[in-house]
């Protein structure tokens, strides 16, 4: 369980997160907001790359920014797919995931198993010997996702993971994310309603660095699901013609 209590953060002297209180349970939490709303900053706080100026991030009860041991433990269970991941083009998929496994402190034998599992989870087993540079945009995203889930992290952070994907690739990618959801907390930062509707168990709207709304996604009926998009737009203060 990840809990943020009154978290504020600054970038370049400007406050971009303001007293964020948030609980991230198991399942997919869509983090929705306009560009510059603070989604990526919140992600960076969750990875530990950015230290909050106020507040606490607790993972399993430990303040991850308070002690280096807690941070190491947090990062052991963390998977992160950055926005627009750039991957070394000459590396083969499996070699890149081996590297990711080493970064997760997995032993060679554990790492090999973790690589196979991650490749299978993102449907890239057949492409394991391809160079990253020859993969399509969707395949590259899934390779980055595979690197994020190597070692079976309990917290998976996906920053705008479907950006630039065509509808089929996006649907495929979100299907993979759904399959991963039951065993971990997944934060899916996005500004696409489709990501919220297809992949999320709940949504959180962030605007101006503050959480302005949060709700579970109702999948009990198509009508209830379709109302999710309207609820998010309403929370964002935009109408349906805005493109969100």
């Amino acid at each position, binding site marked *: 369980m990840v809990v943020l209590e009154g978290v504020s953060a600054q970038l370049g002297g400007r406050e971009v997160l303001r007293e964020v209180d948030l609980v991230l349970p198991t399942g997919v939490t869509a983090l929705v907001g306009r560009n510059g709303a603070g989604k990526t900053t919140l992600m960076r706080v969750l990875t530990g790359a950015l230290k909050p100026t106020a507040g606490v991030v607790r993972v399993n009860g430990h303040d991850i920014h308070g002690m280096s041991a807690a941070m190491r433990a947090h990062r052991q269970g963390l998977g992160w797919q950055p926005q627009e991941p750039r991957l070394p083009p000459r590396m083969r998929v499996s070699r890149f995931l081996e590297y990711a496994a080493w*970064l997760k402190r997995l032993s060679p034998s554990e790492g090999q198993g973790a690589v196979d599992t991650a490749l299978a989870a993102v449907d890239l087993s057949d492409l394991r010997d391809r160079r990253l540079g020859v993969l399509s945009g969707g395949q590259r995203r899934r390779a980055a996702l595979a690197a994020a889930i190597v070692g079976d992290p309990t917290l998976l952070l996906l920053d705008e993971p479907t950006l630039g994907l065509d509808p089929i690739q996006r649907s495929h990618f979100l299907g993979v994310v759904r399959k991963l959801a039951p065993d971990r907390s997944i934060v899916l930062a996005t500004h696409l309603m489709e990501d919220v509707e297809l992949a999320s168990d709940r949504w959180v709207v962030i605007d101006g660095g503050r959480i302005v709304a949060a709700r579970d996604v109702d999948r009990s009926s198509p009508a209830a699901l379709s109302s999710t998009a309207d609820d998010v737009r309403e929370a964002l203060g935009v109408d349906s013609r805005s493109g969100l």
Partner: protein
Amino acid sequence: MTPRGALRGVCIPRPGWFAVLLTAVALTSVTVMALLRTEEWVGWLPSTIGVLELASVWMPSLLATSAAWISGQPRAHGMAEWVSTSPRSQAQRNGVAVLLVGISGVLGLCLACGVVISESLRSGLDHGMSAGIVALWIPTMVTYAVFWSIVGAAAGALLPRTVALPLGVLVPYVVYAVLDVYAANLPVAVFAVNGTRFYDYVRPATDSLVVRLVFWSVAAAVAALALVRRWRLVQRGVWALSVAAAIALFVGPHYVPIAGAQAASCAGRLPQACLDGSHITTMPRYRSAIEDLWPSIPEPLRPDVVTSAADLVTDAKADVLVAPPVAGVTEPARMIDPTMFAARLGDALFLDRCTDTSGGFATAVVLERWWRDAHGVPVDGTAFVGDVDLDAADLDRSASVRAAEELAALTPERRRQWFATNASAIRDCRESTPVPVA
């Protein structure tokens, strides 16, 4: 962390191949130089083993650049922040580059060392080298290589690739150049790892070798501690290094004579060729070079002995020409440039007999011109380092050029007669009879 871990933990496509390539480059670059026989190819190296030390010119640059390239991969691919969220510490992430590069480079060096020592023992050519010296400078080379691998890895992790890679090439080379060339006569030269190969007659004393081994070992240790961010230990290490460096600088490097390096060694008869012990391996080439020029030396001026230094000849009655073997910028050298040597021998035959421009100097200039023209040697002072510009020294250039041409135009018999008549005057740099017109 294990070598296998190092292979998995670097962000490059084929770390195994990279390690093999680096080992091979380190091994072959040194081995090829050694097997091409230093005294023939490199010429001025006094020892076969010294070839390995020569590797300190480029090996640190190679290792530092390789380490910088590897540790800079995540940054170069925009993955630095992603990698930084790993539970692996930054020290571990950078340490793999040092492990991979250091192990490969040192392995290559050690293999090359085996080849070079074997070649040295087989050929028996090395002077002034001993097991003790070798035992001290092999670990020095290793620690030096490790030190630059660490520096390179740190540069690659902290700086953009466009800065880190050139620095990886330049900084180790600049340190080499400063210590081994520009500061060679200063106390700081005690830290130069490349310090045994320049000396034909002396070598660094054992305590100097110990000082540089200790210095580079501590420097490598401090760099390693900085890499793993043990700042308290780094502070102590820097303190210890500073004190040690201060003591070493106060004492400075000192040298001991190489046994037998200055002893005369003469071979052959008419002429006899004499070299010092340090250049004894050059003797066959030296004799060959003399024999090539022998027929063109006027018979009345042919010496009893040709030597690299006058004090090597003890027979006071012998007619001696001092013409050291010469090549490049070095004399006495271990290889011989035929044109340079012809110029050197011509000087010994004619110009060197005159101490000033009076008496027979004008004739000596004519004869020097004739000799150089006959052997295709330039007269403008570029034949070898320290050569005399005949055109500038010539008081009556057109006359001496004409006289040299007339001497060349004589029949061999008339030229022999002229030299026979004037041999004594030429030897004593006195006025001689004019060169007859053909």
